């Protein structure tokens, strides 16, 4: 029995052209309904962006590095690596020899503890965070090792643990962001400005180790800068009087590390 003849029915629009308007209308309705339900809910459960917290602690740490005095001895680098059990390629503070006319000078390159840090903005799990004193730290337990922060850092100041570090015998195995020792394989590490030392009233290891008086730890709140030999200056005055500059200032990262230029150098090529 031939009861099926699609041609008999009222002419239908060819398949594929069915009520596109209706479909779009339906989609639009879904979008609207979803948005109306979701936006109020989203205000409750959205993860926070820790980059925007304003620090409120008593101290606001920074650093001042006197390029007129650095002689490239690398005592600072070695002290930091020794105290944090770092492998040799992890130079949280790296002394760079920069050639200039008539010679070269030494530039200690360290995490700039930016107030507008790119690394913090791109971290997918908020493993990188800013502590109340303005220091950027890494919570190793949260780090998934995606290395997006390393791509984003303009100062090449972050280091990935490809291997397990060699821990000296008898060392504690209780890492925390303020003292991330030992480093965990598969996570990223960086200078922590030795905030663990600051709590005990001690200077960072690099500042202490510097024999040329070139490295200063600074507190923005009390306007003080101190170096390993105890030389103390009023921070704002010293920076002003010595024409201090910040590395890659134009990137708007607002670093907390200041450099005092000498030797006739002003800015780098890049």
């Amino acid at each position, binding site marked *: 029995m031939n009861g099926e003849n699609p041609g008999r029915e009222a002419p239908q629009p060819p398949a594929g052209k069915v009520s596109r308007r209706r479909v779009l209308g339906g989609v639009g309705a879904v979008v609207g309904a*979803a948005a109306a339900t979701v936006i109020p809910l989203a205000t409750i459960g959205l993860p926070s962006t820790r980059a925007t917290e304003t620090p409120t602690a008593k101290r606001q740490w920074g650093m001042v590095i006197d390029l007129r005095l650095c002689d490239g001895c690398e005592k600072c680098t070695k002290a930091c690596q020794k105290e944090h059990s770092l492998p040799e390629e992890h130079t949280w503070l790296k002394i760079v020899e920069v050639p200039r006319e008539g010679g070269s000078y030494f530039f200690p390159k360290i995490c700039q503890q930016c107030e507008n840090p790119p690394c913090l903005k791109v971290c997918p799990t908020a493993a990188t965070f800013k502590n109340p004193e303005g220091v950027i730290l890494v919570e190793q337990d949260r780090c998934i090792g995606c290395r997006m922060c390393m791509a984003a850092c303009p100062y090449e100041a972050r280091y990935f643990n490809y291997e397990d570090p060699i821990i000296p015998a008898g060392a504690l195995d209780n890492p925390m962001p303020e003292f991330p020792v030992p480093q965990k394989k598969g996570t990223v590490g960086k200078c922590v400005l030795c905030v663990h030392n600051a709590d005990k009233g001690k200077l960072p290891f690099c500042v202490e180790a510097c024999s040329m008086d070139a490295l200063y730890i600074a507190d923005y709140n*009390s306007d*003080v800068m101190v170096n390993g030999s105890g030389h*103390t200056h*009023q921070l704002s005055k010293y920076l002003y009087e010595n024409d201090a500059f910040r590395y890659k200032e134009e990137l708007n990262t*607002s670093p907390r590390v200041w450099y005092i230029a000498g030797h006739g150098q002003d800015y780098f090529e890049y």
Partner: protein
Amino acid sequence: MPHISSTLRTVALLALLALTAATLGIHPALDARAQSEPATTTLTVQPIQHTAGEPAILSATITDSSGAAVGDVPLNFYVETDAFGPKLMKVGTAVTDVTGAASVSFDPTWEGENKVTVIFPGNAAYTTSQAETLFEAIGPIEGHVNAEFGIKTIRDWAPLVAFALVIAVWGTLLVVLFRTYRVMRRPRPATEAVPARSPRAGQALPSDER
């Protein structure tokens, strides 16, 4: 026997007199030059009154042992901080005027007790001296404020908008899936005939080229 003229004798006598006078130290400068040790000085720091929102004026006066003002010498002003142990932070240097007074302006960076130390470093003529005082910095004193970055409205709303869009997309996918599932599971109504595949469907598309 040569005659020493009376004029010559007068001049010699006068010269001798002058020399004696000079030696006896009538000129005070000559008096000081003749001494071998620098004089002691006394520094006094004026009491400091701080009002909120204003810089504190730190003043000091330096006098010598006889109470005379020592002018034209530099005084160093320090505030004690507890950055990694008590340390003196230099907040200014001022040169004393004729009255032996000098002052610097200082913005306190923390509320409460501030210990000011003034030190005269000393020079060839005077010994070093120092004095201290305390003053109370009145708040509120704002600590360091990070500069603002980003556009606040976008920072606040962009995540919500993105989140809503993602939920809307997933919602649409689920709606399509659900609608399809529902219509598939519905059994064929008894009245509807079995639709055959259109016989024309078997034809190859005539516009095909080889």
